[in-house]
């Protein structure tokens, strides 16, 4: 299987070619009519370094005011620099009947220089030959002998080509699309990792509950728990209330006040105080009011009665 798209039909594009009518995807190899070549021996180690200096190498060699792209590779000790105008190339291909979406990759004849051991005829008047390891277009009449000639086929397809996606009207260039894709993918990874961490936190909470239930296995059932709570909560509330009443009553006993009787059961309470004089009785009343207890004065005395329901 070839996933690079190099198994597609390779068409040699040159200025004198006949228009084509294709409904399938092809690769295109361009003759030197569409690019400018330069070879240099430079102390560079990597192609990206060479590509960075490529524009300066072609100053004065390519038409100014037009956008040029560059492709660089190493042949022996030399770096091969190739400048091309993608806009001009796509315009030419469109003129010759190529549907740009059907052009998978663009290659340059120089990339297949090793295969040019014989001339390759371009139409009736021109031929493609290799001179000093450089592919050039020469008039056919300049050839020393008439044949044999190279037969152009898919075997001329080089490994590395130029994609055309950016050239036929995409809003985003490949570089921009890749950058956006990387950013979005990083964010998505971040979200997935965070999501997974939240999911783990839930498991921790559940483990904590499981631990508690293991210590108190009788509380496994929610029904049991609710029943126990209902039972004891009722007792707890009622008993706290009773104790609160007793505490309030005891707080109301001071000098001049005597507890005559106190009676509390499960439903109500009844308290009677004997007060020394009216002033003490009033103070007891005020204290009762403060505790939201209602007092009743016993006729003919300073005694007070407090009653209420629980």
């Amino acid at each position, binding site marked *: 299987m070839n996933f690079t798209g190099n198994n597609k039909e390779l068409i040699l594009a040159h200025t004198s070619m006949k228009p084509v009518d294709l409904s399938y995807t092809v690769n295109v190899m361009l003759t030197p009519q569409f690019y400018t070549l330069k070879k240099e021996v430079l102390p560079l180690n990597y192609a990206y370094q060479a590509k960075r200096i490529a524009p300066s190498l072609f100053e004065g060699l390519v038409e100014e005011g037009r956008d040029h792209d560059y492709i660089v590779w190493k042949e022996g000790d030399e770096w091969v620099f190739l400048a091309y105008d993608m806009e001009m190339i796509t315009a030419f291909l469109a003129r010759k009947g190529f549907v740009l*979406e059907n052009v998978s990759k663009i290659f340059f004849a120089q990339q297949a220089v090793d295969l040019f051991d014989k001339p390759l005829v371009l139409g009736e008047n021109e031929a493609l030959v290799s001179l000093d390891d450089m592919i050039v277009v020469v008039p056919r009449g300049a050839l020393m002998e008439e044949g044999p000639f190279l037969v152009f086929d898919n075997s001329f397809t080089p490994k590395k080509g130029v994609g055309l*996606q950016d050239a036929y009207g995409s*809003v985003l260039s490949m570089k921009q*699309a890749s950058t956006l894709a990387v950013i979005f993918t990083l964010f998505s990874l971040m979200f997935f990792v965070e*999501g997974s961490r939240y999911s783990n936190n839930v498991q921790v909470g559940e483990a904590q509950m499981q631990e508690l*239930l293991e210590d108190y296995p009788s509380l496994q059932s929610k029904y049991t728990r609710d029943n126990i*709570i209902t039972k*004891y909560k009722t007792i707890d509330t009622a008993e706290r209330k009773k104790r609160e009443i007793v505490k309030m009553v005891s707080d109301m006993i001071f000098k001049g006040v005597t507890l005559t009787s106190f009676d*509390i059961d499960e439903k109500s309470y009844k308290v009677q105080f004997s007060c020394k004089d009216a002033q003490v009785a009033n103070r007891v009343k005020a204290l009762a009011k403060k505790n939201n207890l209602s007092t009743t004065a016993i006729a003919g005395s300073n005694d007070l009665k407090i009653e209420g329901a629980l």
Partner: protein
Amino acid sequence: MTWKRYQNELIALAAFVLMFIGYGYKAVQVSSQADTMASTKHSVGKIKEVIALKKIWADKKTTKNVEKLQTLIPVSKVQWSSKSKKVTASYKGLSAKELNKLVTKILNLPVEIQKLKIQKIASSYDVEFKCKW
């Protein structure tokens, strides 16, 4: 092929959709965590409440502690009747000090007070007390 024309946009869009799915996944997990945590917290709270309530109101030492009410006051003043987890006690002629001691003790016991009646007779107090646990 039209899709090839928009290949770059499709790549960016696919990555964007992936990011959106990732965001959705995270949002679901956050929301689910909040719900589960709230539910777990509520359950843990309930369990702790049950444990605390049981510790108070179903304390096995309560019987032993209630028995102390019998010996807290001189035996001559006490009439004691105990059956299963129920006690009926009657105290006669208690001084104010003894009354305070007795009431404080009763209030600190985890029992259901069914009746607590204090009556002042001359300078002393009579107490009737009925409880269960």
